[in-house]
């Protein structure tokens, strides 16, 4: 964290000398903003579970000292928001990399089914600018992933744990919530503060895919890094609500969490999941605090009869 700040201070001082910064004291202004961002960053990442994630990515992205600073790019990192096109490009790159590590299950009926359930749940999210894509990954690992722009993946191992459509809706709801709440984009924005130091910025010559790749790091490592705990808790709350709004019984996601809680602790299929997520017991407890009696009157459906089972 300290190193990151020092680096940012370096950018700011460099930015001061650039011709763009002549109109007003841009350097001072940016310094204030960076201080804000850095402190926010500190507050958002107290999780002792993954202490090295941010610093690692920061260290990996240290650009050569003599590289040019693109003030526009830096400005974006501090104030900007990703457009839907950028969001899509980022999600496409992450997803293409993830699929390089794990292919999709070759079962059209399964994949169409998951897309139908997923789109119906996503329709309740209010985000209409997205083409949602859902895929079941051919691995026995128990996990699910979301990438910006509406890319959602569930592993075959997780799918096997499911007992009805409401549980699938709950899992997909959680992942859809990561997209609508832009959790990954927030993480990327923090690391793009460092990327803006020039590596990403001196880009006219590079193609845009390379640019995006620089932003997301190596391969699909962003998926191995995980998100802030609070982002996971938020996705649980929001995902439950999306599934309930879609007419499903809201208990699908908690039931899947119960199944995960009951798995043997040393099961290799959950090692990445439990590395990147709070433990199921904590997630259930947090949901319990929020839900309390609020869903007592809901009459959702579990839609067990048409749930598509895989061999």
């Amino acid at each position, binding site marked *: 964290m300290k190193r990151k700040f020092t680096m940012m201070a370096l950018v700011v001082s460099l930015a001061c000398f650039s011709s763009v910064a002549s109109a007003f004291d841009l350097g001072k202004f940016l310094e204030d903003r960076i201080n804000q961002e850095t402190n926010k960053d500190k507050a958002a990442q107290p999780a002792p579970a993954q202490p090295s994630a941010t610093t690692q990515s920061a260290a990996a992205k240290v650009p050569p000292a003599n590289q040019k600073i693109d003030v526009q790019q830096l400005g974006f990192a501090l104030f900007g928001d990703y457009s839907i096109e950028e969001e899509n490009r980022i999600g496409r790159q992450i997803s293409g990399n993830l699929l390089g590590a794990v292919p999709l299950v070759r079962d059209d009926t399964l994949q169409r089914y998951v897309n139908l359930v997923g789109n*119906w749940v996503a329709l309740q999210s209010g985000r209409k600018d997205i083409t949602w894509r859902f895929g079941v990954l051919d691995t026995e690992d128990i996990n699910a992933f979301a990438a910006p722009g509406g890319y959602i993946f569930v592993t075959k191992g997780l799918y096997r744990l499911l007992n009805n459509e409401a549980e699938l809706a709950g899992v997909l709801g959680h992942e859809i919530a990561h997209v609508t709440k832009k959790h990954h984009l927030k993480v990327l924005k923090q690391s793009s503060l460092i990327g803006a130091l020039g590596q990403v910025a001196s880009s006219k010559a590079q193609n845009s895919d390379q640019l995006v790749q620089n932003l997301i790091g190596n391969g699909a490592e962003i998926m191995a890094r995980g998100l802030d705990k609070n982002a996971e808790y938020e996705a649980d709350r929001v995902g439950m609500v999306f599934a309930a709004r*879609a007419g499903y019984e809201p208990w699908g996601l908690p039931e899947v969490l119960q199944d995960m809680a009951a798995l*043997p602790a040393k099961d290799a299929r959950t090692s990445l999941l439990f590395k990147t997520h709070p433990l199921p017991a904590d997630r259930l407890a947090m949901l319990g605090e929020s839900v309390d009696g609020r869903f007592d009157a809901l009459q959702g459906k579990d839609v067990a009869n048409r749930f598509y089972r895989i061999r």
Partner: protein
Amino acid sequence: MKRTLISAATLLLCVSAAAALAAPGTVLRDEKIYGQPSSSAAVAGSVAKGASVNILAKEGGWLRVTAGKTTGWIRLLSVRAGEGSLGGTGVGDVVGAATTRSDPSRVVAVAGLRGLNDEELKQAKFNAGELAQLDTWVVTVSQAKTFASQASLAAVSVPALPEPKPAKAPSSWESN
């Protein structure tokens, strides 16, 4: 009459579930146990955070449990499947049994397989072919709506859930 039938069926289910599928659970917060799966039912007892219960059956957002001498219904979100300390992932060997209706044999069949790891994700190379495959399964909004109505699923108005009162530092994700 219908009501009696349903309760009789539920009872039967409970009995068979209790016989075949009783599973250990751990209480996640101080909570009441009710005589029926409803917070307006009579309170049959209470349990403290960390207490062990035996899960007998599940109905909606409720679990039928035995805690000491008390048997009754507790909120699904106030218990986690598995026993042991609250910090652990749980050491269940029956995969939630009563709570999940899972067929344990399915799970046993795949146990021992390895999971994904950081290194393979880091090394992953962009696969355009798989991405194109993904696009072939995209469905339209109207297809999704038709699919929902086929199972009589209709959109329901459900307000957002509040953030739980922060135990320590508040989340910055909301304000961010």
